[in-house]
């Protein structure tokens, strides 16, 4: 069962990574507003440029 010796640090590294992500994201204000994102994702198709020839150049 020494494999445990191997799986534990593994779990630690993974866990540390995700905790890291969590801390980072919180500090970057990802979780400041937990209401609007749920609504905003519904609008992802609503920022189309209507006549798209005009902008071809900018692509």
């Amino acid at each position, binding site marked *: *069962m*020494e*494999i445990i010796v*191997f799986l534990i640090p593994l779990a630690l590294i993974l*866990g540390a990574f995700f905790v890291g992500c*969590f801390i980072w994201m919180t500090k970057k204000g990802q979780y400041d507003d*937990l209401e609007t994102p749920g609504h905003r994702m519904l609008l992802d198709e609503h920022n189309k*440029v209507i006549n798209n020839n005009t902008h*071809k150049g900018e*692509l």
Partner: protein
Amino acid sequence: MNAHASTRTGKLEYFSYDDQIVRLFVIATVIWGAVALLLGVTIAFQLADWHVNLGLQWTTFGRLRPLHTNAAIFAFCGNAIFAGIYYSHQRLLKARLFNDTLSKIHFWGWQLIIVSAALTLPFGITTGKEYAELEWPIDIAITVIWVVFAVNFFGTIIRRRERHIYVAIWFYIATIITVAVLHIINSLEIPVSIGKSYSLYAGVQDALVQWWYGHNAVAFFLTTPFLGLMYYFVPKAANRPVYSYRLSIIHFWSLVFIYIWAGPHHLLYTTLPEWAQTLGMVFSVALWAPSWGGMINGLLTLRGVWDKVRTDPVLKFMALALTFYGMSTFEGPLLSIKSVNSIAHFTDWIPGHVHAGTIGWNYLLTAGVLYFLVPRLWNTQIYSKALATVQFWTATIGIILYIVSMWIAGISQSLMWRAIDASGKLVYPNFIESVVKIVPMYWVRAIGGTFVLVSFIIMIYNLYKTAKSGNVGKEEVYEAYALDESSIEHGAQPHRKLEGWPMIFAVLSLIAILVGTAIEIVPAVMSKQYITKMDVVKPYTPLEILGRDIYIREGCYLCHSQTVRPMTHEVLRYGKASEAAEFVYDHPFQWGSKRTGPDLARVGGKYPHMWHYRHMWDPREVTPGSIMPRYTWLFTQKIDYGSLPKKMQVMQTLGVPYSKEDIDSSVANAQAQAEEIRTNLVEAGVPQEVINKEIVPLIAYLQRIGVDYGKSEVTP
């Protein structure tokens, strides 16, 4: 929009989404889905009637079953995941995929991997570890493509124009990271040849790693990515924001922290230490909470649109999928409770449970996603909602037939196995009795499976007509502010400087670190590995190694377990309960997870050589009513002695105590042992030339399994 006068118009960026790659993955999904289901149905019928094995080695159950699981998980679900992720990822982040070429490499690379799986598994090229049967070259390919995927995925995050990273993306991230880790750790193996390798771990340890992987493959390949898709497509389809975004965040983080440890519940009552089993059990039960949190969050998102659910195929499938998710995430923890597990484990209840998840959750959700995607990707309407409804009901009936039949089968098996009469004898001493009893259920299952296959074909037709009626059209142009332009809240700092490349770097380095740790720690682990050794347990002889490789090649472990649980009825039926120390030379372990046939942990010396000879030629000669296929080719194919020394060397590096001369004289020794078996067989009236046929080493191995400890007087 009318031309606007804002001075930052210049900073308004125009971009388009790469939907071509999504289309490709969608197509791949339906094709491989059909293949996977077809294989599934085939092997289902093989269990109902052995003739369906067609007497060809490439089409026997043992070879096709891994193909089915791999096709279902990595080909069908894999492509579905990629399609859904690539579609939603771009839109959630308001950015085109990082790099079109990478996308293409990802797509074609993945299809190549699937094809090569299809070209190896039927030929018995397998590692013999469930859900990880693919051999090392393919494993490497998978790793490479996965990294490509990761770069493309995180690259897009860097290029994003939407500040907030939506919860779905977090589920994707968890998937990418964890799957990478799991795959690498579990696939650590030392090659013998291009098509053969031995697992780095042995016995108990291999089992633990394998099921830590096996369980998390389910968790992070079949659950988290689909939850991510659920969190995107269900709200989109219902046009409702997810019921509680807060809850979804909590759902994600709690899932991430619990899931990874539920693995050991697959090994309850094995020789895995008691405490590790309990651990697995506790965490599996704990999993119930977040799983249902997610399900409830998903279903409540549909509140107020149930009328739509009745009419809209997309919602219809998703609602049912969520329900099945709820069902199987309830059944799972239940099964991981020791007492329940002691009944259900090794029986057909488990395949039933697994398919409630894969068909009920993965297939149905994918169906919903496809019905959402195809009309949008081909700018058209669903060809026929009626057909979709037909598909819906066919699938539902199919699943129900499947689950129910497997419940019945599983429970009746279990009851027959454990039935002991007053005098303390087994009521059904012959295993075959329990097999014959449930064959009808196998028919029901096969029919249920067929229903599912039919439903899938209906979908393919429906989607094909849909796509046909539409056209790909040219890419729409979208507009959005560059990330920083839209962050105007007080104290919002510019982003690119902080995140971006560091992020992708962090991810890749994490994977690197993990591999590093693996490489560093494993040898240490290995060297200490024989502390729990028993003197009576000796390494396999060269011939037995060859036999064991055949055992693995033919996928025997898929129907025969090799571990006796410490329960009266099992000890009565099979013999001494298994001990961890017995398996220290098993690279890989062959405990198996299902008893379609009896356990083989104590089969060594149980029957004469001749019995095995006849049994392998036609099982029904010795056990009437057996559903095991015939293995006639073992009687014609020559033994491959040539590979022996290399195999022995690898074993030696893995820590099996073979001496130099053991290896040098391996071929000679093997032939000597083969000679003994032959003489024995010939006495029983078998033709001479059997000497160099594969049946011999196989018999040698079978006669060895569990003998050292089983026949010894040693007691734990």
